[in-house]
């Protein structure tokens, strides 16, 4: 299945902040993080899937849009 991934700020890879990733059906967010080598601890990251807060155990669906956000900025 295809997952659309948005990588924020310091998580960008090679200048790309939006990727499409192929993953086996039934994969979790945690497995996606490992695949992408996102090394931040859970404290230092916020995850959204389809505009909702998600945790690493969540099972992904086809065409899910996932945001990996390190810490948080804004003002």
């Amino acid at each position, binding site marked *: 299945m295809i997952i659309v991934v948005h990588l*924020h*700020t310091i998580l960008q890879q090679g200048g790309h902040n939006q990727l499409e990733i192929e993953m086996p059906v039934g994969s979790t967010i945690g497995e996606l993080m490992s695949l992408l080598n996102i090394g931040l601890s859970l404290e230092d990251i916020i995850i959204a899937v389809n*505009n909702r807060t998600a945790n690493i155990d969540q099972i992904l669906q086809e065409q899910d849009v996932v*945001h990996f956000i390190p810490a948080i900025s804004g003002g």
Partner: protein
Amino acid sequence: MKNKSSDNNQQLPTWNTLVWRINTRTKVVSQEPVSSAWSKLGGRGLLARILLDEVLPTCEPLGASNKLIFSPGLLVGHMLSSCDRISIGCKSPLTGGVKEANAGGTTGLHMAALGIKGLILEDQPSSGEWSVIYINSDGVRFDSAKDLIGWGVYESSAYLLERYGTKVAIALIGPGGEMQLASAGIQNLDKEGIPSRIAARGGVGAVMGSKGIKAIVFDSQGSKKPPIAHPEEYKQAQKVYSKALLEHPQTAIYRDYGTAAMTRISNGFGGLPTRNFSRGTFESAENLSGETMRQALLDRKGESNPTHACMPGCTIRCSNIYGNKDGKTIVSPLEYETIGLMGSNLGIADLDTIAQLNREVNDLGLDSIEIGAALGVAVEGGLISFGNGDQVMEFLTQIRRGSPIGRLIGSGAAITGKVLGVIRVPVVKGQAMSAYEPRAIKGTGVTYATSPQGADHTSGLTIRAKVDHLDPKVQVDVSRKAQINMAGYDTLGACIFAGFGFGAASETIRDLLNARYGWQVEADILHVLGKETLSLEREFNRRAGFTSAHDRLPEWMTKEPLPPTQAVFDVTDEDLDSLFNW
């Protein structure tokens, strides 16, 4: 208490922390020792205390009974990283309630060096009389400002820096404040002398204009920093805090991407205000992102810089200098809130356009959040189209001219909506919401509803909390914690972003205060200050006529689903009313 008329410079007592009063009608200046009720407060907390003690909550905000108060926070004065902010407050002509507007830049530092605990501007002169107040260690002087009236902020501050020298701090208003528009703020210089650190919200600039003051020049040359009771302990605590701040991963993200990094985050949660708060995602959010901005500024070089400190000694450096394709500065800073309210909220998809609009709004001395929200409402009212930067610029020109349509927009989103017959107006207590859609980030919606400041994200942003932002049942706790913390930081003079350092080393707040002042406060001092500040503010508002009916989001946001999440604001009234139970 000494009373002095101030036609000439006055001799002041040797350096000491004092409350200074200036009567803007008689020009009488006095300095008072700080009373015990005021001594353990600063910044926003001190403003709330003084307003409650001295300003009739039912007074006319643009009249003689209102007071405009400048108060540096408790930690201001030693270039402790990110802790030299200035609080400026009054009864707000926009909300009718208590108002604290907060800015970085250099005003706080100079006031602290002059030993000014609080500067209270009282009364008002006959109309047409305009002054520049000049303050140095010798005293206070009223200089004529008639040359400057009608001038934009950038030209005025350049003139003032030539007149008074470049080593001063300046707080000034633009044409917006001169016209007493409810969206007018007070600009302050950054450490390079650029006049764009604005105390923006709630019309503090209008109140300064109502007192006939174009600018206040703070000249602390020759003054020493405020004394520290226990210098060794202070140094130790400062070290721990500074290390925690520098090591926090968020500091590096702010340094490199600034507040604009929030665009993709709020968009990711379906909470980026788009086209007058009609949806929570913008199809061009990528164009407005911190990532895009950073790359553009690095490519453009010249004066552009994605990293910039507004206060001397700040190690976060979240600000930026936004340059055009030739590397010439358009505006500094370009911040997330303006990108939201004057970008996605108006369907404008291009940072260069937003930067130019931002510069114009700065020059007028106006709150870009309030103006952006008013313009979004004006689109629904049929005056303007989405996605048209030229039209927006034309409206800003109308504001500068003081035309009726300019005054309409300049009076803010609530009035614009009333006049144009628009219901979909994003305000609470008359003040416009900022760039967090309350239906998608419900905790921030709770803050908008309940903050004594009106719809104000800086008083309690919740997007950082690890909660489901759409679940109405968990938001009050999140907002309460955030509001208490923010009120505390605002009383310390700490930038919100300093909170990352203090969060990781929370005992340093106690240690820094005890070392600086010789106090013996406990580890919970941030919350003590925050709760006291909020209680004082709530009491002022209560006496001004506010009830729980005012602690609500607009009805349409409880009914109209917001695409793409289809959320409505559904935190119950009971829950909202429980926020201040502690």
